[in-house]
């Protein structure tokens, strides 16, 4: 018993370990998390794959062996015990039972008692011995069977589970028959030692099939490498289908496929959905997730540095990369653009210019009032909507460092204005930080890019400074002051063009004493705003466009542009890529399993449940009634386990049997007695 409990405790603790260390992650994650030294230590202990570790299997093996031994030792005794009535009960033994009594019987009492016991669910046997007539009765013997069932069930479940494990594969690896493939080889180049044949009895692998593509092997991930699993069929993905609810949550993931048997060459169409796998030739194919299958994307690049205002086109498929040749490119500044993803739908909660829902605080009464009514308020769903396609790409520099970007194709309205959003992050674990490029009146980025280039052009800045001074000059008649103003405006623009508001703030902090900083900043900003406005107009003139009139809308545009330019210094990329067009190719990710142990596990589980219910809910009782020739009767009741109900039960049987034996009104208890094997003649009258 102690051993059993220790085994249960050890298994529990071992399982806990596996939930603390996240399992089966890429090795690099662990190295980042634990450092090199502990990574190796934990790896030796197999902590990254606890449930496949040798020591975990050892614990399971121990559990199976000890439970089996337990069953082996107890079963014959229990089965024998179950069948026995224990008719050899001696008169002297009655007094040794905690529940015993002495009653009196009239003639025919034994038969009537037997009828009563039968009605109460007992099976009884009548024997004559030298003390008198003994009724040995029992019920609930199946309780013992419950014990056997539950424990056998447990063992069967474990065995079935081990059968579905990867023991065979691992022993083949250990023997050197198979070798894990590392790196990212072409599937056709994987050698025979990296392939598992059709005879592999159990496996669980993944398969990514792009639309229109055909796959005939599954990938078994092994730590940071893989093995290929041969399949008896090919799968061609016709179409991956994704549907959404009106609220934006996904409603359906399904794949329309054509399966071709490799042996017979026959093909048939099938649909695989989440919760509705396809099972063919012993292999089950599940819809596991979806991915991009190499969508073709066309992007426009807008430079974010330098005085030139231009754009360029770039094309590529998701999963590929291209080298970027920025103007004046030297090798150190060379960047590689890696297309990593494309999403045709993005359901986002957009509120108050923030991505993500925002809830305003309310009083408790309001909250309760708001919460009365049905479990859905119709207004809520408006907060989330599809904001259109987005592209994810990485820009990798010559040193191998990469930043990840997430750009939305369509503009998003914030406080009545439209912006193109681009998110950047340096680590995969970080949130994206978004930069907002303001759309111009024509619904494009032309004006913003023109303004941005203008601010980087010293000639335009100088001209804008002068224009600004001219404009202000109608009030200033002193040419010297006018010159100084032009100079300051030019310098404000120049300073801003170094690092945006940050360089402005640095400058003020350095050159202005603390008490006057706020005033200085206000002045500086109005100077900057005014000069920027002029710079914009100058650049428009150069392009042969008319001057704009200053109003709230254009003022906001200047402000938004300054914000975006300032943010662009922290954007980490000299180019903004806007998604122009796409040709989507989806891919479906399937999980493929063969688990011959599944049926065994299910049978074991059924045994386990039956066993547990009968062990807990079938109460075993034994009852003896010895009626002596002189009319005295001895009664004893026993149970395998002490329980609270036993006292009451004994009380009831004693009272009832006393009445039954006496031939009195006791039979009113069972007005409809089942005809016992020896129904008392006249007992019912």
């Amino acid at each position, binding site marked *: *018993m102690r051993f059993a*409990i220790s085994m*249960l*405790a050890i298994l*529990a603790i071992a*399982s*806990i370990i*596996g*939930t603390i260390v*996240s*399992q089966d992650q890429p090795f690099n994650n662990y190295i980042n998390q634990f450092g090199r030294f502990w990574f190796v230590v934990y790896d030796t202990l197999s902590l990254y794959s*606890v*449930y496949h570790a040798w020591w975990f299997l050892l614990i399971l093996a121990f559990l199976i062996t000890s439970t089996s031994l337990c069953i082996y030792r107890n079963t014959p005794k229990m089965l024998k015990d179950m069948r026995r009535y224990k008719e050899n009960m001696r008169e002297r033994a009655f007094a040794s039972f905690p529940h015993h009594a002495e009653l009196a019987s009239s003639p025919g009492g034994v038969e009537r008692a037997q009828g009563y016991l039968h*009605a*109460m*669910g007992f099976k009884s046997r009548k024997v004559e011995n030298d003390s008198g007539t003994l009724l040995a009765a029992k019920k609930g013997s199946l309780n013992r069977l419950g014990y056997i069932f539950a424990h056998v069930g447990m063992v069967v479940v474990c065995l079935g589970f081990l059968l579905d494990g990867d023991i065979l594969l691992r022993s083949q690896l250990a023997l050197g028959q198979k070798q894990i493939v590392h790196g990212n080889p072409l599937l056709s180049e994987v050698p025979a030692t990296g392939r598992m044949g059709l005879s592999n009895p159990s496996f*669980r692998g993944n398969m990514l099939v792009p639309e229109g593509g055909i796959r005939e092997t599954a990938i078994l991930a092994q730590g940071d490498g893989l093995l290929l699993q041969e399949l008896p069929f090919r799968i061609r993905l016709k179409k991956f289908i994704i549907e959404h*609810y*009106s*609220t934006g*949550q*996904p*409603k359906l993931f399904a794949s329309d496929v054509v399966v071709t048997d490799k042996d017979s060459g026959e093909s048939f169409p099938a649909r695989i*959905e*989440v*919760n509705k*796998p396809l099972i063919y030739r012993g292999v*089950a194919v*599940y819809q*596991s997730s979806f991915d991009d299958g190499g969508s073709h994307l066309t992007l426009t690049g807008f430079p974010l540095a330098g005085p030139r205002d231009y754009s360029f086109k770039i094309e590529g498929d998701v999963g590929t990369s291209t080298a970027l040749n920025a103007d004046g490119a030297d090798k150190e500044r060379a960047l590689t653009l890696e297309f990593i993803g494309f999403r045709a739908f993005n359901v986002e909660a957009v509120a108050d210019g923030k991505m993500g829902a925002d809830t305003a605080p309310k009083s*408790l009464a309001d*909250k309760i009032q708001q*919460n*009365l*009514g*049905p*479990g*859905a*308020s*119709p207004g809520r769903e408006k907060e989330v909507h599809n904001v259109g396609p987005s592209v994810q790409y990485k820009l990798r520099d010559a040193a191998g460092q990469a930043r990840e970007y997430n750009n939305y194709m369509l503009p998003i309205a914030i406080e009545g204005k439209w912006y193109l959003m681009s998110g950047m992050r340096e680590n995969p674990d970080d949130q994206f930080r978004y930069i907002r490029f303001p759309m111009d009146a024509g619904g494009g980025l032309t004006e913003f890019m023109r303004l941005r280039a203008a601010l980087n052009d010293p000639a335009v800045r100088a001209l804008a400074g002068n224009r600004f001074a001219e404009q202000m000059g109608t009030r200033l008649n002193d040419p010297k002051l006018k010159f100084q103003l032009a100079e300051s405006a030019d310098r404000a623009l120049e300073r801003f063009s170094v690092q945006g508001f940050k360089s402005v703030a640095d400058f003020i902090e350095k050159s202005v004493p603390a008490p006057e900083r706020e005033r200085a900043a206000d002045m500086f900003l109005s100077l900057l705003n005014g000069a920027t406005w002029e710079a914009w107009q100058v650049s428009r003139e150069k392009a042969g466009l008319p001057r704009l009139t200053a109003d709230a809308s254009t003022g906001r545009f200047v402000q938004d542009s300054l914000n975006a330019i300032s943010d662009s210094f922290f954007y980490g990329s000299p180019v903004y890529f806007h998604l122009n067009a796409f040709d989507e190719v989806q891919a479906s990710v399937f*999980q493929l*399993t063969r*688990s011959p142990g599944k049926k065994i*596990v*299910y049978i074991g*589980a059924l045994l*386990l*449940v039956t066993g*547990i*219910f009968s062990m*807990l*809910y079938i109460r075993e009782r034994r009852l003896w009634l010895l009626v002596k020739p002189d009319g005295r009767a001895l009664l004893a009741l026993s149970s395998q386990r002490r*329980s*609270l109900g036993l006292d*009451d039960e004994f009380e*009831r049987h004693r*009272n*009832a049997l006393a009445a039954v034996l006496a031939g009195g009104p006791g039979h009113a*208890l*069972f007005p409809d007695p089942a005809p016992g094997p020896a129904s008392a003649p006249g007992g019912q009258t």
Partner: protein
Amino acid sequence: MQLTHPYAETGPLIKRIAPLDWAFALLLVAGAAFVFTRYGAFMDVYERAILTAFVPALAWFGWFFKPMRLLAVLVAAASLMAIGMYHGDLATAQNSFMLKYFLSSQSAVMWMIALFFMATGSYWIGLLARSPFSTLVGSRLTWFAVGLGFTGLMVRWYESYLLSPDIGHIPVSNLYEVFILFCLLTSVMYLYYEGRYQTRALGGFVMLVVSAALGFLLWYTFDRGAQEIQPLVPALQSWWMKIHVPANFIGYGAFSLSAMVGFAYLLRSNHDNPSRGSLMALWGAGFAIAIALGLEGIAFRTSGISPYWASYFAVTLIIFSGIVAMRERVAPQLPALTVLDDVMYRAISVGFAFFTVATILGALWAADAWGSYWSWDPKETWALIVWLNYAAWLHLRLIGGMRGPMLAWWALGGLLVTTFAFLGVNIFLSGLHSYGKL
């Protein structure tokens, strides 16, 4: 012969069925027949099987625990009334007084919460003031709360279809809904034991764990807006959900109940055999439960601990240390140790049996949805740990024949494990069971 109490066992259940029992069963059959004729075409074979099996199951439960018959009939009547009042349009709830303030799902749930809190208060007043009337009120309030809670869930089920036919589903699909289910199932199990053992002294204890869950539910509603009906993501669109989730929550409910009875056992045990050691241990137990229940608060801090969870934790701590401080007043009214031990054993038996079934059903479902009946997902693994914990408890008692405070302690420890499996996994660990993500 006189029955000692209404639920005594006398012979097989089937021989104790009264005409009212048959009437109840007949009503269930009629209800199911109506559903089949009207909606049968919309149900798949599994759903029909589940509905068919539900009829004898509920009939049996009504025969076994007689007050369930009335409860089931009243819940059905209230739900049908609400459905009738909706006239097929969710917006009706804003104009109909009955719907807005009583029968729409959120209103019913709010009433349930209020009544459960009042019931907890009444039970404790009754225990501290030695007033049988007050505990009787507590018991009645609990019944009403259960009735309203079930009505709320039924109406919510209907409302989900009103929202949109493709959204409609049984309300056991997210953490909010299962928390209500947890409170209801725990209370029903408690009410059964209350009747069976003819004691209302445990009501205050069990209702504390229900109240703690309601504290979470309130936060979840007001702070997170979790009461909104959400459509089912593809992974949850399975008839398995209808049986896997309720079975699991019978388990969780029974285990929580047994832990609270375990705490009562320790109180009573200290009263019967006072010693310094057992008193110290009792204080430890009080703090342990307070921490187990208050753990939620520590877990939900975003930046520092919010005032809500700080006060939640403080109230829990005050209540449990208050109980230990008042032990001389409380303990003598508790049932004898043998009774407490028996309740604990029965609760754990029910819990263990259903938890086993639930875990197996989960495995069957996982085989359909994820391609593997067991993937060592954190929720699965913790379910296994809970199972192992109570398997050990049952071995100790059934095979080892153990009785006494050790088992009560073990049941209390089980509350920690169960709470972690139920909530902690959702908070701290990620995995395939991310539907109840916080």
